[in-house]
C-alpha cells in the first residue's frame, strides 16, 4: 500500500520533471524555429487558430447570451439590471474568455496535435526524420507549440468580444436594458488591467494546452491504442492544469 503510493508519487514527480525539461527544450528551440521556419509556424497558427474560430465564436455568442439572461434575472431582484453589462464584461474578459477558450482549444486543437504527432510516431515518421538528420523536435513539435501559444490569446480575445456581443443581444435587444447603461457601466468598472489579466491568462493557458498536447503526442505509446489514450489524456490533463493555474493566477492578480 505504502509502496504503491511511493511508486505513484515517484512516477508523478519523474513525469513532471521530464515535462519541465521538455518545455525548456522547446523554449530553447523557439526563437530559431520562429525566425528560420516561419512558414511552418504560420501553418500551425492556421491549424490551431483559424480552424478553431467557428467553435470559439459560436460558443462565445451563446456563453455571452447565457450571461445576459442569468445576469438580468438575478440582478433585477436588486433593481440593478443595468449592471448586466458590467457583470458580463467582468466574467468574460477575466475568467470565461480565457478558461473556456482553453478548454475548447484542448478539445479542438490539442487532440488534433496529440493524435497527429502520436500517429507520426506510430508510423515511424519521426524515426525516419531522425535517420535523415532532421530533428523531429524542431521540425514537428516546436512549430505546433508556437502556433498554439500564438493562437490562444487571439482566440480568447475573439471569444470575449463575441461573448459581449451575445450579452448585448440578449440584454439590450431582447430584455430592453438601456444600451448606454449597459456599455457605460462596463467601461466605468473595467480597467485596462483587467483586460491585461485576461490576455496574460490566455497566454499561460496557451503554453499549458500546447505543451500538454505535444508532450502527450510525442510520448505516446506507438500503437493505435496508445495514440487514443494520449489524445484522451491531453484533454483531461489540460483541463485540470488550466483550472488549477487559473485559480493561482487569479489569486496572484487579486493580491497585486
Amino acid at each position: 500500500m505504502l509502496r504503491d503510493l511511493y511508486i505513484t508519487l515517484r512516477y508523478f514527480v519523474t513525469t513532471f520533471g521530464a515535462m519541465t525539461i521538455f518545455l525548456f527544450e522547446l523554449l530553447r528551440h523557439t526563437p530559431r524555429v520562429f525566425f528560420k521556419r516561419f512558414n511552418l509556424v504560420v501553418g500551425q497558427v492556421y491549424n490551431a487558430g483559424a480552424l478553431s474560430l467557428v467553435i470559439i465564436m459560436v460558443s462565445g455568442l451563446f456563453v455571452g447570451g447565457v450571461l445576459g439572461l442569468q445576469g438580468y434575472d438575478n440582478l433585477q431582484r436588486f433593481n440593478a439590471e443595468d449592471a448586466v453589462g458590467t457583470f458580463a464584461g467582468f466574467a468574460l474578459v477575466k475568467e470565461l474568455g480565457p478558461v473556456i477558450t482553453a478548454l475548447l482549444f484542448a478539445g479542438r486543437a490539442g487532440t488534433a496535435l496529440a493524435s497527429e504527432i502520436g500517429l507520426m510516431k506510430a508510423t515511424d515518421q519521426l524515426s525516419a526524420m531522425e535517420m535523415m538528420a532532421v530533428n523531429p523536435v524542431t521540425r514537428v513539435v516546436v512549430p505546433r507549440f508556437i502556433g498554439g501559444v500564438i493562437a490562444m490569446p487571439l482566440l480568447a480575445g475573439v471569444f470575449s468580444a463575441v461573448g459581449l456581443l451575445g450579452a448585448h443581444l440578449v440584454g439590450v435587444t431582447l430584455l430592453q436594458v438601456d444600451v448606454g447603461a449597459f456599455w457605460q457601466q462596463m467601461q466605468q468598472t473595467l480597467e485596462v488591467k483587467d483586460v491585461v489579466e485576461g490576455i496574460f491568462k490566455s497566454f499561460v493557458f496557451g503554453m499549458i494546452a500546447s505543451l500538454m498536447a505535444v508532450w502527450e503526442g510525442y510520448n505516446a505509446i506507438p500503437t493505435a491504442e496508445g495514440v487514443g489514450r494520449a489524445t484522451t489524456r491531453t484533454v483531461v490533463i489540460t483541463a485540470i492544469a488550466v483550472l488549477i493555474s487559473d485559480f493561482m493566477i487569479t489569486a496572484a492578480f487579486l493580491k497585486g
Partner: protein
Amino acid sequence: MRQTRTVELGTGLFALLGIGALFFLVTQTTGGDDFNASEVYEVEARFQNVGSLKARAPVAMAGVTIGRVTNIEFDPIMLDAVVTMVIDEAYDQIPEDSDASILTAGLLGSQYIGLQAGGSDIYLEEGSEILFTQSAIVLENLIGKFLVNAGGSDSED
C-alpha cells in the same frame, strides 16, 4: 502553392480578427479616464477623515472632472489625512478659498472630491493648500447617530 495561399489568407484573417478583438476589448470595454491633461498643477488639502477615497479618484467642480487625486497620506503630527491632487492647468482660475468635500457618486458609488467655488480674487496654484475641507460622510457613523437619536426620543416618551 494554392494550398499555401489558403493557409496564409486564413492565418492573416484570423490574426487580424484576433488582434481586432483584443483592440476592441482594450478600447471599448474599459473606461479609461475622462481626465487626461498633460499640463497640471498640484494642490493639497487636509481632511479629518477621507472615508474610502482612493488615489486616482476624480476631482470634480460643478460635476465636471477637472483633476485627479494622486496621493493620500496620513500626517502623524497633525493626525489628519493629506490628500494631494492634480488639476488641469486649463482651470487656473479657481478661487483660493474654495471648499473641498469628499462626496459619494450615488448612494453606494465610489468617492470623489467635489470643489465648491469660493469668492477670493487669489487663485489656486502649484503647491497651494485648500483650507476649507469637509470630511467624508461615513455611513456607519450616520447610522450610529440615527440609532442614538431614535433611542433618545423613545426614552422621552
